[in-house]
Each structure stands twice: as C-alpha cells, then as structure tokens.
C-alpha cells in the first residue's frame, strides 16, 4: 500500500479551521461547565432537600448517559421542546456542557467536602455569612485541590468534542472524516487527525501539571 501524505497538506487550511473549532468548542464548554459544576455542587450541599435532589438528579442523569446519546437528544429534542432552532455548534456545546457540568459537580462536591470544617468555622467566626465563607475561604481552596481532576476532565473533553461531528459540527474530526470520504485517503487522514489531537492534548496535560505544581496549596 502506498501512502500519499500530500492529501494532508492540500487540506491543511480546512484542518486548521476544524482544529480551531475544536479548541473553541472545548474552551466554551469548560467556560460553561466550571461555573455549572460549582452551582450544581452548591445546590447539592445547600441543605435544601428540593435543591439538593434536583442537583443530584441532574448529575445522575447526565453522568450515566452516553455522551453521544445526549448529543443526538439535544439535536433532535431541543428544537421540538423549545421551538428554537440552534446551530449544530450551539447544540453540541449545550450537550457537552450538560455532560461536563455533571462531572464537575461531583468534582467540586468532593473538593468542598475535603476542606476541613474548621476553615468554614474560622470564616463564620469572623462574622462572614455562609456564602462569604464559601466564596472567600472554601471554594478557592477546593478549586486548587481539584485542579488535577479538572485537568483530566479537560483532556477528556478535548477529545470528546470529536463526538459532536455526528451532528455535523465542522470541528476537527468532522473535517478530517469529510476529507477522508472525498479523497479515500483513509489512513493518511486518520493519522493526521490523531497527530493533531495528540499534539494539542499533550502540552495541555503538561501545562496543567505545571499549573498544579505552581498554584497547588501546601498546608
């Protein structure tokens, strides 16, 4: 079998565009799912049975559904349910954000629970409200403590964005698959795609390791 790598260079512009969309999708998802996860975790720990139950149901639902199913569901059900037509990009973003928020919720819940009780008490003893204690004292520590988990969620998410190609969002996977079916250069395109994902993912993982070393708190 003869490999022809010129197909990759010939479509470099398309691949670059797809890559940009993949990065954008991952960044926007995390930008939604970090606050989303924090809000869900706070609801879960709120002490209100209703709010805590709602948050737990949300998390249990989205953590236990295959992501690809959530993406399809968002694609077919959202327009019917809300009578709104979203672009494939927005639909994919919503599906990913729901999924990752559910994971981040558990991450932050564990992080908050790991901060020893005396920290919250010290904040309350200064006269802070429960919310101020959470915002000023507990969350900053919890966030640093869960950085490694958020980092691995990020790296998973970066690769999982490829799943939104099933609803024809023109990100990296979709673009590479399209070129593959137009040119029949299967191995070359799959290899190029793998190389791009890896080349982008690896430094991210290293960057997060470094951030973790630099900003991790020592007690």
């Amino acid at each position, binding site marked *: 079998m003869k490999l022809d790598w010129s197909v990759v260079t010939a479509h470099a512009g398309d691949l670059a565009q797809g890559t940009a969309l993949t990065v954008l999708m991952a960044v926007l998802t995390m930008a939604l799912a970090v606050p989303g996860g924090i809000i869900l975790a706070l609801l879960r720990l709120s002490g209100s049975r209703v709010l805590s139950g709602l948050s737990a149901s949300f998390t249990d639902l989205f953590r236990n559904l295959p992501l690809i199913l959530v993406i399809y569901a968002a694609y077919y059900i959202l327009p019917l349910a809300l009578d709104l037509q979203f672009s494939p990009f927005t639909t994919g973003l919503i599906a990913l954000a729901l999924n990752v928020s559910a994971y981040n919720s558990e991450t932050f819940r564990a992080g908050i629970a790991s901060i020893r009780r005396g920290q919250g008490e010290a904040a309350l003893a*200064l006269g802070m409200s429960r919310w101020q204690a959470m915002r000023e004292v507990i969350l900053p520590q919890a966030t640093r403590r869960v950085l490694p988990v958020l980092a691995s969620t990020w790296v998973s998410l970066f690769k999982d964005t490829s799943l939104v190609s099933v609803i024809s969002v023109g990100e990296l996977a979709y673009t590479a698959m399209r070129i593959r079916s137009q040119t029949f250069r299967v191995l070359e395109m799959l290899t190029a795609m793998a190389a791009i994902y890896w080349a982008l993912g690896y430094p991210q993982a290293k960057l997060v390791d470094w951030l973790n070393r630099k900003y991790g708190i020592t007690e």
Partner: protein
Amino acid sequence: MRDATPVLTYHDVRKLFGNFVALDGVSMEVSRREVICLIGPSGSGKSTLLRCTNGLELLHGGEIRLDGIPLPRDPRGMRAVRQRMGMVFQSFELFPHRTALANVMSGPVTVLGLSRRDAEARAMALLHKVGLADKAASYPANLSGGQQQRVAIARALAMEPEVMLFDEPTSALDPETIGEVLNVMKQLAEEGMTMIVVTHEMTFARRVAHRVVVFERGQIIEQGPPAQIFDAPLVDRTRSFLNHLGWAA
C-alpha cells in the same frame, strides 16, 4: 480596673451531642475587662461553652446573653454577634491560600467592607503588635505554629472585638513556641481585653486570669481567683485534677 457589668451571662446552659451531655446546666457571668480561664479534663465542656458563645454550636437549653440581650438564632443576628467576638482556634485555621497579611485583612474587607488600603493599614498595625510585621507576605505553610497562632490572633483582633475567645490556643504548639503566643495573650489581657481562655497552661491561668473556672462533666465544679483554685481549692475534684497535671496544691 474591672467593670462590674457583665458582658456575657450564661444561664443554665445545656448542650447535647446525641446522648452525650456536653453542658449540663452551666451558669456564670463574665465582666468587661475580665480574663477568665476555663480548665478541666478533656470532654468536660469547656470548648463547647466557647463554641456556644459565638453560635458555632446551638444550645439545647438555657440562654447566653451578650450585654443583656439573648444571643439571636437567625443568621443575620448571629453574624452581628460574631463580629463583636474574636475566636482563636486550637488548630489556628489560618486560610492557607492567603498571606499572613491577607488573612488579617479578611474580616475587615469581607465583613466590614473596609477599603483594601484601610484594611491593610489595620492589618499591618496588628501584625506589628503580635511581632510579625516582617512575615506579612508569608503564607501560613511557611510559618511556625506559634507564628501562625499569632497571625490568627491578629486576624481575630482585626474585627475590633469586645470579647476574645481562645479555644486551647497553645495545645497544638511545640513547647518552644507556646511562650510567644502566651505573651501576646498576656499583653492583650493587660490592655483590658475581655478574654475567655480554655487552656491547659496552668502557669498562664495562675498569672494572668482574674478568675479560674473548673469544669467537669459539663458542669462548673468550682470557680474563684487563681490563688483559691491553685493553692486552696474548695473541691476535692479540683485538687485531684490539678494533681493529675502535676500541680500539687
């Protein structure tokens, strides 16, 4: 120099943890500018009484009055009360993600809404007072236990409290750093701060306290000036407790 009007009044205070009776009808008064040491065996209710005083634990009976007004139970009222009392914990509980200076600024900035500049000036003055101005930029992890506890005292003082509550402030310290913390507390006492100190430091209690209160099994078994408690206790259990600590009365 002591003022006769009680700032804190405890009346028949009861507290349960499950079936365990932590406080079994405690009544006492604390006057303004008075220094009170609470002593007694572990689990006798001393720390619980302190934690009830600023609402970290809720009572199951009786009441605590601050300036004659019963402690409120609503969160807003409780916050207002806590701002008038400083609390120092056994395990320091400095915020590890903030420098010493930022720790001391926490209360003034977040609770009192002071500007950063004013809060910083206040915090620097307090760090100076506890002898740690040169450690302002250090994080708690880089301070010794004694230094951390002194920062914690400064943090509590930054709210300009009327009463300071110390919950075994030296129990987690290495022996060589206990003295520096006790000296800061002694200085506060000399300045006229109202203080309730749960402690096992009998030398401190003897030299600094105006009154020593002895707890056992959730009750006050004896109270009086240090000379009485340490030299001529009226209750046998006080004597045997002090003997147990190596204090032969």
